[in-house]
């Protein structure tokens, strides 16, 4: 129930710069999810907000209070750790009430707060158990309960669901969403899981090597990624990327030529960035699910067919063009059909391609044209 304002935050570990001047505003009651490749500084940023890492520069405000140099417990934040970090020598109730006990709250009030939190999470039956007697999902509930009991202004989660199995993860995800609505609390959530990011976030923050790449709503980031990194990071399997050369850049339109395909012409959506000139190397991106039907078709020699029930992923080599970078092997592309699709490895398939589904990235990696909505 509070805003978080981060400005110019820098964190160094020796000579290594883990956070490079982070600026981020988080609204009251907002659910912000931070994603990014491993080692990009998500945990470091979260821990800096929690007060577990001292920043080397910059400022952190919670509400209208500067907490940059405050003790973790005085910041009004609560953190849920990936491996639960429950105190093994205390009961569930003891774990949940420990923060209040340390704050010198009366026993009755602690018992009430614990009861309330355990009702929200339906762990009332386990209050007198030791953590080791709980399942993974129950432990994570207790860890979340411990955070709730303290009634923090801001909840911090560091990959809280990654130790749970897929089914439980889905359930807890829904439950966390409900919790967010119920408590109407500000939550900052770090995850590796794209589904979690896309479904839970009001806004997603994409980090890469200690810097923010882009901030926006899940759909915005997915449909209008600011650069090649964000475009590649969101979406699984990854966007297919092709090398191309600019053959015309006039009147707010870009035309790129790719070996083996007709020229692609897209409106110039982003004017800032480097000057574009004919002959520039650019990259074209097309999402796997955009392929399938469309203006033209090409032949694809399937290498691997993954039938996932609801959808079918086909990794294969196109007959007359090559991709660069991506989830598939060198030169291969991925096609995603939103249905079951009868195909076998080794077979040659005809795949449709809409010509307006391409993104165009300049040689700095900045997105200059977005794909048309389908």
């Amino acid at each position, binding site marked *: 129930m509070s805003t978080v304002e981060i400005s110019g935050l820098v964190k160094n570990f020796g000579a290594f710069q883990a956070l490079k001047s982070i600026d981020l505003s988080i609204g009251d009651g907002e659910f912000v999810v931070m994603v990014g490749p491993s080692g990009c500084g998500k945990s470091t940023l979260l821990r800096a907000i929690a*007060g577990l890492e001292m920043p080397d520069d910059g400022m952190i405000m919670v509400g209208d209070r500067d907490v940059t140099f405050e003790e973790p*417990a005085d910041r009004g934040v609560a953190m849920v750790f990936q491996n639960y970090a429950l105190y093994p020598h205390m009961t569930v109730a003891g774990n949940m009430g420990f923060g209040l006990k340390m704050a010198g709250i009366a026993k009755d009030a602690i018992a009430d707060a614990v009861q309330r939190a355990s009702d929200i999470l339906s762990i009332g039956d386990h209050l007198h158990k030791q953590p080791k007697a709980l399942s993974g999902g129950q432990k994570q509930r207790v860890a979340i309960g411990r955070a709730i009991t*303290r009634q923090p202004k801001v909840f911090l989660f560091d990959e809280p669901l990654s130790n749970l199995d897929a089914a439980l993860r889905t359930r807890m995800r829904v439950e966390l969403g409900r919790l967010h609505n119920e408590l109407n609390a500000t939550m900052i959530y770090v995850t590796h899981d794209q589904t979690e990011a896309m479904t839970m976030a009001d806004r997603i923050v994409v980090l890469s090597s200690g810097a923010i790449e882009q901030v926006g709503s899940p759909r915005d980031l997915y449909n209008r990624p600011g650069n090649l990194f964000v475009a590649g990071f969101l979406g699984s399997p990854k966007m297919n990327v092709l090398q191309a050369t600019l053959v015309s850049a006039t009147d707010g339109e870009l035309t790129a030529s790719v070996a083996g395909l007709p020229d692609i012409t897209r409106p110039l959506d982003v004017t800032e960035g480097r000057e574009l000139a004919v002959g520039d190397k650019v990259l074209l991106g097309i999402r796997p699910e955009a392929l399938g039907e469309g203006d033209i078709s090409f032949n694809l020699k399937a290498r691997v067919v993954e039938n996932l029930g609801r959808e079918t992923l086909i990794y294969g080599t196109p007959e007359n063009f090559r991709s660069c970078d991506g989830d598939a092997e060198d030169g291969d592309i991925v096609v995603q059909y939103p249905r079951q699709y009868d195909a076998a490895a080794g077979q040659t398939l005809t795949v449709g391609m809409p010509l307006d589904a391409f993104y165009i990235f300049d040689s700095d990696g900045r997105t200059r044209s977005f794909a048309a909505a389908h």
Partner: protein
Amino acid sequence: MEQRRFKATSLVLYGFTGLWSLMVLIPIAYMIMAAFKTKRSMFIDPIGWPDALNWESFERAWGVGVGGFMINSVLVTFLSVVVIVIFSGMAAYALTRMPGRSGQIIYLLIVAGFAIPVQAVLVPVFQIMSGAGFLNSRLALVLPYAAYGIPFTVILFYAFFLDFPRELEEAARLDGCTRFQTFLRVILPLSGPAIASAAIFQSVFIWNEFILALLILTKPAFKTLPVGILELQGEFTSDWPAVMAGLTLATLPLLLIFVLAQKYFVRSLAGLGK
């Protein structure tokens, strides 16, 4: 083939262990047996069985003041172990949590200090204690014993704390604990095995320590068991059964502790408290 070689190896190992155990057990068995002999039978037939279960030598040993020595030993051992555990625990925790390499360097110095043999510092320790006017006091034993015990115990705790999950400490900090409260309320309660290992290991050493106690304690009122029992030799030049009875009494408490807490004792030697 593999199977047979494995059997041969374990045969040799068992044989060796058995032989070793025998070597250790024979003197203990003899001590207990001889304690029940009479003075006469000790002279006539020193290695024969006692004629009857004869408790008189225990009475004679007790009469010299074994009870008092035992109380002294218990006090000195208990106090020393408490000092050792508290100081080593806090020192090791601080060393593992120091930023940079400073903790590691101090740790190495402590490990190096561990290599100094007790006998080498005997005379200086005696002089210090004598200069401080501590001779014939329990403090004069507790302080050096603690000093002897702390390096090894720091090493033991250091390994334990190094692996202690950081998230628990961070959770405690978020819950409002200061460093010291974290140590007291989260780390200590979870260090039971390490503390038990350290305490038992040090108890055995201190309970048995002889040379320093011999130097520092001259008045019978302060003597610990190992030096106290020596008194039996002085007063009854030939009363070996009483000496054996006194030794049996001295060994008993340790034997008891060892049997009850063997697990921790072995851990302290093998796994550094884990």
